[in-house]
């Protein structure tokens, strides 16, 4: 049996055919969401992180059929009218991207954090990135980029 599930991916409703035992990660990549990376497949690296109903989760640990009816947001949905999302731009500006494999997952964790804590401390940013491994950088620049995004967004709301 190949069940069809309903997923709202980056705001667009889709009917997606799955295999029963497949993970959300596999389905999303097949649907073209290649920002969702297969890193460890054991829940340890965070490269596969997506927002599931608004919360950052590792898509390698979630069965696709169990996500039926839910909203999924990936990095593909961040760019608007050719402009990067402020956190993407901040990552570029801070030099936080080297090979880039971890970057989508870090953006997902960062966006989840700022959505419920718009003014985090440095320690809170580090805790939020606890499940995102980066083999290239020293994490400092990613933390800087998320803090810079928070400052920028605070400035925008003050104005």
């Amino acid at each position, binding site marked *: *049996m190949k*069940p069809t599930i309903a997923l709202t991916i980056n705001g667009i409703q889709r009917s997606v055919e799955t*295999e*029963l*035992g*497949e*993970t959300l990660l*596999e389905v999303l990549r097949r649907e073209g969401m290649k920002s969702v990376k297969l890193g460890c*497949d*054991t*829940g340890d690296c*965070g490269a596969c*992180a997506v927002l*599931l109903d608004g*919360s*950052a*989760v*590792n898509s*390698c*640990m*979630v*069965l696709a*059929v*169990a996500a039926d009816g839910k909203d999924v947001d990936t990095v593909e949905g961040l760019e608007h009218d050719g402009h990067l999302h402020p956190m993407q731009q901040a990552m570029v500006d801070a030099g936080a991207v080297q090979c880039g494999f971890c970057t989508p997952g870090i953006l997902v*964790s960062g966006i*989840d*954090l700022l959505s419920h804590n718009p003014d985090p401390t440095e320690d809170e940013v580090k*805790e*939020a990135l*606890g*499940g*995102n491994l980066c083999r290239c950088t020293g994490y400092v620049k990613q933390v800087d980029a998320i803090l810079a995004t928070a400052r920028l967004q605070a400035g925008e709301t003050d104005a």
Partner: protein
Amino acid sequence: MQLTHLRSYARPIDLESAVELLSEGGRGTRLMAAGTDLVLSGSDEITGLVDLGGLNLAYVEERDGAVAIGAMTTFTELLEHPAATGYLDGVVVEMLRRVGSPLLRNVATVGGNLVRKQPWSDVIPLFRALGASVTLFDGDVRSGPIDDLYAEAAHLTGAILTEIVLPSQPVGTAAAFWKFTRSAVDIATLNCAALIQTEESGCIRARVFVGATPRLAAAVPSAEAALVGTDLSAAAIATAARAAADEVPTGDDLRATAAYRTRLVSVGVTRCLEDAKRRLEGVTS
């Protein structure tokens, strides 16, 4: 990872159907909470899943000082809930913030952790030290102490864990949790939880649990006995820590040797008791 042998998946909306589906499904059918362990197991033995996500078991409620937790509550939902923050100076929150990363805590459930009985579980030693009770449904509703889940002959086959209750604690009670890891988000090399209850006369009740030894957390009766009747002085705590190091059987695995773990038992029990005592002093002074 995939569950390549999965042939059936159901998401019932009442407990009776869930229990029926589980028993009709036979040997390869499992209950599923968030499914993190089930999916990552990639087990070929799993042929059917009964998803508990439609049963409205994700909730946290304060009930006269007690905290009721639906089994499907995620770690994040619990750690952000005021009932958890307010319970015994936030000891539950302190423990949960050491469980995995937000990417795990946003999905993994309290019930899945308790039932799965992973030896490194951080939830089990603390909830046992707190004297939690659990409710199970297998056609009938049964409630009892959480310790029953971990008794030698315990098996949950066919039953659904529906609710966990952390009891209201008497004045003069404090608890603490300690976890030793190789990195911030690793599972425990060793963990420890303690609860102490005091009156004017001194300590009248103590619960001490040590886990990831590398076996599942167990009570340490000799340390508990060493504390009751004392004033929880540094000397009394040191005696309890020594008793624990003597009593708790430790073993080798890739994270640590038995000898190293035995040193950790003593450190962990000491730190937990000192933290609990500090909390008591903070409250009474």
